[in-house]
């Protein structure tokens, strides 16, 4: 899937916690990525359908309005955005086994280790 995406520096961050969103966004930007942040799955879908094409999506699971699982399901239904790799960020390690999450390209367990975050993003995006 990821092979179909031209490596670029754009990363989408979907996270409802403002502080995490700010920290991750700032750290990735310091590494040279362009970060598109949003606080729930619904907004993220809207941005994607408006034409945004990040190399990777960092996705929180527990969010209001549209949660991570719903986002994954919607994304899989939409051929235009389905190929974009998604890295799930969750505090609950057991969430990994769930089918929707298992299809994700990567998994980051909260609390997120910065180096792991950077390595993971690097697999999909070029700063």
């Amino acid at each position, binding site marked *: 899937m990821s092979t179909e995406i031209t490596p670029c520096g754009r990363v989408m961050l979907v996270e*409802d*916690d403002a*502080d*995490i969103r*700010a*920290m*991750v966004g*700032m*750290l990735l930007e*310091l590494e040279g990525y362009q970060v598109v942040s949003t606080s729930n799955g619904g907004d993220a879908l809207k941005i994607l359908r408006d034409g945004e094409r990040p190399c990777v999506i960092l996705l929180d*699971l*527990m*969010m*209001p*309005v549209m*949660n991570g*699982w719903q986002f994954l399901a919607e994304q899989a239904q939409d051929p235009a955005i389905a190929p974009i790799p998604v890295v799930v960020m*969750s*505090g*609950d390690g*057991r969430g990994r086994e769930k089918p929707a999450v298992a299809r994700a390209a990567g998994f980051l367990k*909260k*609390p*997120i*280790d*910065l*180096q792991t*975050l950077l390595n993971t993003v690097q697999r999909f995006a070029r700063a």
Partner: protein
Amino acid sequence: MSSHEEGDLKLTEERLARISVLQELTVSALDLFDPRRSMDDLLDRLAMRLGCRAVVCLGPSERGTPRLLGASGLSRASRACPLPAASSLEELCLPYLELAGEGLVRWVFRVTPPEGPADALGCVLLLYFDGEPRLPAQYHGVVERLADILRTALLHRRLYARTLESERGLFEQKTLLECQSEASLDGILFVATDAAASYNERFREIFELPEAVGGFGDLLEPVADRTAVPADMAERMKRMVLCREEQNRTEVVLHDGRSFDVACAPVKSRDGVYFGRSWYLRDITERKRVELERALLFQQEQLARAQAEEARQRASFLAEASRLLASSLDYSATLERVAQLALPSFADWSMVDVVEEDNSSHRVVVAHFDPAKAKLAEALRTRFPPNEEAPAGAGRVLVDGKSELFAELEPALLRQIAGCEEHFEVLQALGARSAVIVPLTARGKRLGAFSLVYGDSGRRYGEAELALAEDLACRAALAVDNARLYLRTREAVQARDEFLSIASHELRTPVTSLQLAAQGLLRVAGNGGFDAVPPAFLRTSLETSVRQSARMAQLIDRLLDVSRIQAGKVELQLEPVDLAAVAREIVAVSREEIASAGCELTLQADGPVVGRWDRQRLEQVTANLLSNALKYGAGKPVELRVEAAGDLGRLVVRDQGIGVPADRRERIFERFERAVSARHYSGLGLGLYIVQRVLKALGGSVKVESEEGAGATFVVELPLDGPPSREARGEEDHRGAAQG
């Protein structure tokens, strides 16, 4: 007188003498008619009149041998001499000494005429003279005549003897019969053809009759009157006495309770001559009593056998029920099983009504043995909940917790139970003729009601069935209770797991920010020293760290608070507090949160509402409710109102969010509970639990009114006087702790 005349006279005298002798002897012979008189008298007279030495009369004995019938002129010894056998009595050589002399002349007279019957007296009359008798020749003729008379006399004598014998025999027989009759235990009545009645002592005793009554007519009434149905008895006896052939046997009961077997039969001689009719009464009271006793015993034994069989069936039914009930812990499956348990052996249809933990009741299962009635059963289940207002029926049992038995469900009663015509029609269509309704109770808690109903199968419930239903209900209640506890436990485990997941998420979120801030700073500083760290990044990182540390501390506080509250240790600092001021303050400090939720907040808290409360706890309650409203009603208006209502202070928080489903309205106040899935809404799910516990400690309450999808309104009410006295509260806390 001439010689001729003299001769004539002499002749005449002689004839007269002869006639006189004949007359005398004839009279004497006629005496022999009486068999008790001896012949010797006649023979003595004969011997004397004719001048005989001896006179002997011989005849055959019973064995046919010659026998001395009578004699004159014989000694006693001679008379005792046995006679030799002889073919003819005339030829017989007599062994008597008196007749042994020479010159004896014998006259022989056959007493039996030759033409007489063979068994007629073969008698001879023998006259012995000492020499030729000096008698006129005519005397021979006189003796011949006498022999004829003797023959007749002997014939009559024999007949008379036979008559006497017969009479004695008859008398003996009669006496014997009378003895037997009197000795008989049976009552005997004989009615002759002339209606003369005779009866034995026993019969007299039975009917308390006088010693003798005249005829059948006099007897009829006293006899009939002693029986239980006099008219019947009289009619039957009257009919029987008239018929000559019929025999019958009946049972007659006297009014003193004794029973008699009465046989009635005609009395006839062997050759069929009808004499009359007899009744034979045998007392069968004792026999009847024994028979009755035996029948009763038999009945009792049958009953005991039936009871034992019933007990066995009940035991096996209950054992099977227990086995079935124990086979699953699934709540709804268990309820379904309970309803099916009694079908079809013990009910045509059954239903289970359940009291939920919030005391609401509803009909969960209606099962009918006839699949064709499934639709009706479903209608009963969904459309007619248990009617707690009804004077009888499942609703009543749910309220009172007492069993009800309706051996016969009259339509009027059924209508009362139904409460409305439509419900009544459904019940009638299902068939409801007899019912038992028993409460489902376990651990002193009313869990529901179990109704068993017989329709048109003709069966009826009684006390025994009620006992069985109660037994069954005990087991069912236990199963229901277990299933419910299991369900609650599973829900609790699930809630705990969810809480752990949420708590870890909630705790990991600040840790994530903190860790990223610290690692980010190190990484940026590592490249070119801390001087190289961009000031904006440095500031954001530090601010994030401070904020998230505080958030973590707050989370930890809240968890500790919950555990303290759970242990019943809500510390209250009671002082006069203005609820309106508290509300204003909380709104003021939550400005940022309100803004980020995108809610328009209306606060209506005009006058002061002052009560004896704990300020910090009231702030906590208000903040939790507001934050709850902002979370679930994000983007929509939120209304906060404080008012006084009598001796109560009231806080109302209304949002227009997703609302609370009816089935969760009570439970959202429990630990780790929330109205919707945790996947959408972060938070520990402890906010409302803390609100509810704090308000309870303050003597107040919180309830929620909501329509799903149209928001929720939380209403808090607090007594202005504050919580009840410390002692009362202490007791309550103690009880709460004991229950926990």
